[in-house]
């Protein structure tokens, strides 16, 4: 089996707190203003809410929008942007054969129903039957479908007609890396010609603030870049959706697609995160691609999460590599399953625009290479597990 087919990124869709589309993101980043965080809604914790979006443009039927919760609408919207950017939106012949891998978290609960049940159950002697009855009467029947992770892919099939195949990976940051890695491997090996890959996350929800606060520090004011959040580190939950269309070079050329960038390499690994583990794993991944990277035209788009000690360990590897570094979570927050794809999208823009936005925080080092940017090394060091590394290259 041919395992060496070239894989191109031919479409990118990104929506986050910074804006929608690569150009808007880049304009905001290049302007160097303060990150668009919110320190009030979930006070004392800082989050990154989604920029206001007109979902109608990608999800025209209101009925479809009503059937989704926010995380699904964000994802379906970003997927639509990517398909449009790739020039295959509404092209049923191609969409019929387009594969799909989505990295998804869980859907939002009805927090009002939860809170009311918790409140009312306190006065009840026999709690479990009471909860049963309240759930039967208070839950919206269709809420379940907005909670199932695979229903993001299901809604993309429904709204955009992507029906070649549909797979959903779960598991925070690492699932985004693995989604892209598996889709890339399948195309490189000739098992697939074209894939839609991405994720969506809505961290601006009480149920997720609760989940993460159970085990991880969340950032409280004053706001600080991911590199500078102290020895315990901290996350800033965010809303974002990020999708890419990737395809074999042959498939892209045959349909006359304009490539955004080449996805030259992608790796993912795990370890137990004993002290130094993340550093060793990321370094090993770098060593795999170091020979392909030309240092006078490459930058690092870092997925450092702000969690410690993972962020410090990543910084130590990046310092040894010596390329210019920009961490994106400082500007768009933590989008878990969607984070790596968002970073891939921004990496694409770095090689396409050839510019690098101003640094923010002590780990953002270096300047855009004088002769332009031809390669972006995109990292993902998950807040809890998972180390990923991709290499994106300019085409032409």
């Amino acid at each position, binding site marked *: 089996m041919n395992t060496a087919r070239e894989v191109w990124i031919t479409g990118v869709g990104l929506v986050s707190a910074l804006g929608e589309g690569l150009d808007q993101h880049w304009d905001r980043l290049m302007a160097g203003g303060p990150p668009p965080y919110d320190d009030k809604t979930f006070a004392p914790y800082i989050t990154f809410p989604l920029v206001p979006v007109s979902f109608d443009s990608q999800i025209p039927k209101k009925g479809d929008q009503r059937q989704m919760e926010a995380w699904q609408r964000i994802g379906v919207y970003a997927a639509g942007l990517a398909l449009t950017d790739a020039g295959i939106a509404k092209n049923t012949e191609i969409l019929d054969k387009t594969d799909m891998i989505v990295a998804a978290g869980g859907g939002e609960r009805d*927090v009002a129903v939860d809170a009311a049940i918790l409140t009312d159950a306190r006065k009840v002697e026999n709690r479990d039957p009471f909860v049963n009855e309240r759930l039967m009467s208070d839950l919206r029947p269709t809420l379940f479908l907005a*909670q199932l992770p695979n229903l993001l892919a*299901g809604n993309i099939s429904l709204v955009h007609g992507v029906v070649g195949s549909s797979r*959903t990976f779960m598991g925070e940051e690492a699932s985004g890396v693995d989604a892209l890695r598996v889709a890339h491997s399948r195309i490189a*090996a000739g098992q697939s010609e074209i894939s839609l890959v991405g994720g969506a996350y809505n961290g601006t929800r*009480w149920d997720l603030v609760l989940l993460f606060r*159970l085990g991880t520090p969340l950032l409280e004011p004053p706001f600080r870049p991911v590199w500078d959040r102290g020895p315990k580190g901290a996350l800033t939950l965010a809303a974002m959706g990020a999708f890419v269309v990737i395809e074999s070079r042959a498939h892209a050329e045959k349909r006359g697609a304009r490539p955004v960038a080449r996805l030259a390499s992608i790796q993912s690994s795990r370890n*137990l995160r004993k002290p130094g583990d993340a550093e060793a794993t990321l370094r090993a991944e770098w060593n795999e691609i170091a020979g392909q990277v030309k240092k006078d035209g490459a930058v690092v788009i870092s997925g450092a999460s702000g969690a410690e000690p993972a962020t410090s360990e990543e910084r130590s590897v990046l310092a040894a590599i010596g390329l210019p570094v920009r961490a994106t979570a400082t500007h768009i927050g933590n989008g878990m399953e969607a984070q790596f794809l968002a970073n891939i999208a921004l990496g694409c823009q770095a090689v396409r625009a050839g510019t690098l936005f101003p640094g923010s925080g002590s780990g953002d080092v270096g300047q855009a290479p004088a002769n332009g940017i031809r390669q972006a090394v995109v990292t993902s060091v998950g807040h809890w597990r998972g180390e990923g590394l991709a290499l994106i290259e300019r085409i032409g």
Partner: protein
Amino acid sequence: MAAHRDKKGRPVVAITGMGLVTPLGIGKADNWKKLTAGQSGIRAITRFPTEGLRTTIAGTVDEVYEDGMVSSELSQKLALLAGREAIEESRIGVSGDFPGPLFLAFPPIEIEWSQRFALAAASGANEKIEYGDLVRVAANPQFHDFYEESKYGVVPEHLAETFGTKGSPISLTTACASGATAIQLGLEAIQRGECEAALAIGADGSITAESVVRFSLLSALSTNNASPQGASRPFSKNRDGFVLAEGAAALVLEDYDHALARGAKILGIVEGCGEKADNFHRTRSSPDGKPVISCMRNALADAGVTPDDVDYINAHGTSTPENDKMEYLGVSTVFGEKIKTIPISSNKSMIGHTLTAAGAIEAVVSVLTILNQRIPPTINYQVPDPAIPLDVVPNVARDAKVRRVISNSFGFGGQNTCLVLTGEPA
């Protein structure tokens, strides 16, 4: 010796170990005995109070459940049991050092009511309880376990560590097709030459009051509470919904030549896999059956065989009015005249619908069917549906010549995956 290749020139992928846990029992031997005896594993739910619920029966795995377990803990325990049985049978690697990646079909998990009530109590809020009150006490170390019990990445990480699988563990969901998707991902990885072995597991131990409520509100469940063992009635005219169940299955997938070289016993071959997404509706299949038909045809084409080469269909067969009708439309279109003579049965008539695990469980049962040349029946088949004229192997197991099986898995969200399984090449 020249490397074995399939009709497409790809490495041949063997199954060298299998593990099985269902409401019928723990382990393949016990399960096979009961499956071929036509026994049901469905019973009244005793794990939690069922007052106020419309459905009070399920295929819970009570032998494995321990008091106070949340869904992620039970699902992980089921996965461990099945995984151990499969790895021990395959005799691959050394204990705790499996030489390949993990593909885990696992239910989406979240914070559960017992945990929410514990947080609410700790918050000391006396009047109205809001999420903010729960968040206020969340950082208390006594609740740290809730975090690891509710995050998607944790169980695959634990299993990867326990079994010593290689690389980033992949946890996936394609709803009721998940178990088949886990096998597909392993199959593809070996075909790509990325690895010589892969561990595919489907596990689901997520029956809670709220999960019963969610499916009830979609009118998906049987309400035949008076007769638990007779409630799952695939292809019967009086079928009224599926029965939730728990279980797990694991398969050691291995490059055939790698397995031969180490003298492994070959249990079966994963000959092909097909998938096709449906964009008709969130919970219903396209009425023309096209996605389901394409899915089966894709699987047969991937295996390089025709409907004439298939001896038995392991049905998705959920016992919902909609699925069974749609599946009939699908199989009758794909198999044409042959559908009158080919046996097709539903393991769910006995096990119930194990959701995330079903595709993997039914793949294991399909291989057992080939190994034993005996087809497990569709039980509770008393009132045939005249609109579904199939040989469902009614009520009693049947000896038959079975060389090749197609196993169907269809799920909410337009998920369709079919596997083609066969015995060791002659």
